[in-house]
């Protein structure tokens, strides 16, 4: 067997999430069964006890997110995972975690909706994820993996960003990257410099000051101060942590933009366009919050036409339009969630041709 083969493992996206979480020292998992993410709790149920961790199947999605709140408040790396209907139920707890400045990782393997919807792939929970999702006005870190390798890497990153910025972090996946198997390298946990968790509720000990984790702010000006502090943190996050991938954008006359699994299909469509001699590039945001606004703005100084592609009727396209220069056009091509099948590279290539003509 070659060396290259020895380093790689062949694994499902959902399993990669759980594997990475354990490597990142996640020691508590709380969840409730829902398709298409059940491989995540199943992996934890099997592996976490071996590491001395706690796996608990909660009585409900609400129970699970609040157990995450409790474990995070107690200073232990913890996570939960679900899909649309369950993520909706978790919003209460996510809002409380955001209000309490608690870290914690939530994985959303998107399925179609609204309501019970279907179990097929969708990207229609972009708004819910990137706008906070619950009440009160807050944001959470949102990372969008486009491969099984990224399911692994971004899960680990989610734990770090969540700890550094003291806010919940979501891995916004979908049933394609969740169910897909790919050969990946199981990287060791990065040696990130993390702040000491002085705020942790662990039993105050003798002589130490009392720690309180709470989101209630009734004092004069307290609530306002909290919001300004969070705004500053979101700005810092945007400045330091925005991540994206550009493919052949240097000379592009049209830039396709897409996130998650759709960006994979788009990437091959862009390759088809290049083979046909068209100057087309790809811009893929990896962080959806913070959205890489400056990168889009910079691209739009040179390239005046963007084609946003989503597996929804159009959500991220709003952020793209808000980010590009005023004289840049943003076209949209999308499929409603639950259309029954995924767009193919050939289909997206047709869309590129249609819009490219507009440039030429």
């Amino acid at each position, binding site marked *: *067997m*070659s060396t290259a083969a020895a380093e790689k493992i062949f694994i499902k996206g959902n399993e990669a999430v759980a594997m990475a979480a354990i490597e990142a020292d996640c020691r508590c998992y709380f969840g409730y069964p829902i398709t298409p993410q059940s491989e995540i709790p199943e992996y934890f149920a099997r592996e976490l006890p071996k590491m001395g961790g706690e796996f608990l199947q909660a009585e409900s999605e609400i129970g699970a997110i609040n157990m995450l709140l409790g474990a995070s408040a107690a200073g232990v790396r913890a996570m939960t995972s679900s899909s649309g209907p369950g993520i909706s139920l978790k919003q209460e707890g996510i809002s409380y975690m955001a209000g309490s400045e608690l870290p914690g990782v939530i994985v959303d393997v998107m399925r179609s909706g609204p309501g019970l919807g279907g179990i097929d792939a969708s990207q229609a929970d972009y708004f819910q994820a990137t706008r906070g999702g619950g009440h009160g006005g807050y944001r959470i870190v949102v990372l969008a993996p486009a491969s099984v390798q990224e399911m692994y890497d971004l899960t680990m990153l989610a734990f770090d960003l969540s700890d550094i910025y003291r806010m919940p972090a979501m891995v916004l996946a979908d049933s394609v990257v969740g169910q897909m*198997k790919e050969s990946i390298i199981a990287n060791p946990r990065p040696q990130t410099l993390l702040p000491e968790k002085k705020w942790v509720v662990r039993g105050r000990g003798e002589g130490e000051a009392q720690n309180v984790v709470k989101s209630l702010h009734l004092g004069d000006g307290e609530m306002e101060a909290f919001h300004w502090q969070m705004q500053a943190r979101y700005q810092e996050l945007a400045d330091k942590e925005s991540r994206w991938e550009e493919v052949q954008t240097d000379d592009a006359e049209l830039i396709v933009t897409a996130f998650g699994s759709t960006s994979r*299909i788009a*990437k091959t469509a862009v390759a088809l366009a290049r083979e046909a001699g068209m100057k087309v590039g790809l811009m893929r945001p990896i962080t959806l919050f913070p959205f890489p606004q400056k990168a889009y703005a910079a691209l739009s100084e040179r390239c005046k036409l963007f084609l946003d592609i989503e597996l929804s009727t159009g959500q991220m396209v709003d952020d793209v339009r808000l980010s590009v220069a005023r004289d840049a056009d943003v076209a949209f091509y999308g499929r409603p969630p639950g259309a*029954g099948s995924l767009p193919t*590279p*050939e289909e997206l290539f047709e869309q590129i041709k249609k819009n490219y003509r507009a440039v030429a």
Partner: protein
Amino acid sequence: MRYDVFIAGYGGQGVLLAGNLLSYAAIHEGKNVSFFPAYGVEKRGGSAMCTVVFADGDTGSPVVGNPSVSLLLNQLSFDKYAAKVKQGGICIVNSSLVDVAGVDLPGIEIVLVPMNQIAIEMGDVRMVNMVACGAYIEKTGALKSTSLEAALKKALPERNHKLIPANVKAMEAGAQAARD
């Protein structure tokens, strides 16, 4: 080089195992692999399908609209997917269960392999997926047969490793049939 193969058939024909096997073989050869169990309304009603993409570099889209090679193991998948094979591509058909009479697919090479019959001759109809994999590597040369043998150890649970020699024979018979 980037290869893609689409496999479809009834649930129970070992379609997903065949996809896994080709994936492990490609990994064995140091390639990047993307295995995607196909999604959508089609999967209801007892059909199983998957797409495998492997490449030295980036695998790109896990979804393939016009596969370069399709392994179609029953009539339903032949009727539905044969015409999607791209121009210059290959459609390897299980002629034990598929009637291709009257179907005209210009620009697509149709390879008929009586997979059920061969599998039964080899001792077990369940090895139809192995026959298909053998035919695939014979027609495409995309993977070495030794890689497939190595892949069997990875793709099959330990308790089934005693079946590996029989499976290897089934693959060889599939390759032979594709040659003829």
